[in-house]
């Protein structure tokens, strides 16, 4: 392995950015490919697939054998709001392989008693997200219903290109939210990425069922990332309007 490739690889992994190390198994030469880099032909197609699946493996291309080692950051879920839905969402997401952090400045909500075994931050999103920034391998679900708490986090999630951004509330609530996000400087394209009403349309009624709908939608966004047309086609089928306070 090229020493420079190793240094780059480790720097990217520390920064929670996806990379693939492409090694020509014939002559041992290697190079780093970052997500979004254009690589032509069969090799490019295999690289795109490896970024999506996270699976490493060998590929025959251009008469040579390449080994693609995919290093993807651990995807995670940040939930804004230490509410009833979050109490169900946190253990479910953890079981599904998505570590969870919960942020809510309202100390009556964000208690260790209500959220055992979860990373819990009883502070404003403005403060915690400065120290632990969001990134494209983070999903963000804003479920407080309180613009003072949700709005900043939603804007930050759009700017950080989080793979999933969901916001609780009816279409009417969301229309008002869109106005506020536009005023905060979000673009229409960014706002279109918000899943609102939140969650896949499975007719969820209870807080725990809504948690299932949110988790399923976040997983769908993760597994279909880079396949935007498919994702948006599916998004249009996703409506969860029943829950609105």
């Amino acid at each position, binding site marked *: *392995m090229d020493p420079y490739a190793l*240094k780059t690889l*480790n720097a990217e992994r520390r920064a929670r950015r996806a990379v693939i190390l492409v090694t020509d198994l014939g002559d041992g030469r290697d190079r780093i490919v970052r997500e979004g880099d254009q690589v032509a032909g069969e090799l490019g197609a295999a690289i795109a697939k490896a970024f999506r699946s996270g699976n490493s493996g060998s590929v025959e291309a251009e008469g040579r054998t390449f*080994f693609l080692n995919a290093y993807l950051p651990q995807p995670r879920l940040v939930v804004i709001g230490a509410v009833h839905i979050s109490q169900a969402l946190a253990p479910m997401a953890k079981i599904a392989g998505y570590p969870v952090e919960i942020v809510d400045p309202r100390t009556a909500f964000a208690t260790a008693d209500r959220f055992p075994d979860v990373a819990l931050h009883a502070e404003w999103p403005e403060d915690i997200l400065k120290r632990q920034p969001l990134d494209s391998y983070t999903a963000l679900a804003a479920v407080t219903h309180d613009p003072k708490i949700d709005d900043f986090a939603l804007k930050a999630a759009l700017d950080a290109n989080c793979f999933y951004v969901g916001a609780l509330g009816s279409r009417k609530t969301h229309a008002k939210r869109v106005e506020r996000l536009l005023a905060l400087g979000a673009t229409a394209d960014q706002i279109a990425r918000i899943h609102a009403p939140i969650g896949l349309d499975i007719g969820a009624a209870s807080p725990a069922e809504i948690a299932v709908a949110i988790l399923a939608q976040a997983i769908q966004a993760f597994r279909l990332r880079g396949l935007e047309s498919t994702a948006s086609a599916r998004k249009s089928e996703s409506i969860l309007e029943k829950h609105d306070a």
Partner: protein
Amino acid sequence: MENSIYLDEARDPLIIAEGWMKDGKDVAIATVVETWGSAPRPVGSHLVIDAEGNFHGSVSGGCVEGAVVTEAVDVIDSGKAKMLEFGVADETAWQVGLSCGGRIKVYVERLG
């Protein structure tokens, strides 16, 4: 196992390999490039080895690491990468003990 969102710097083989390199050590990196059957470590897993035979990480459940380390010391000397194969079909592999029934292919290369 708990999924951490940050690298475990003290145990991450590639971080350790970079540290060894900075210390001026010769290093080999072994990578699982193919598996068949019930292989204990997934494709892409690393074992890193220095010229004294110190190692970190794993390419199996501990069954073939000894053999990989021996080969890696050769690879560090010669600078020529090697493809190693272990599995039940192979007499040597059976001796080194990949008894879980799987087969693995391990690419061993020198750093630099």
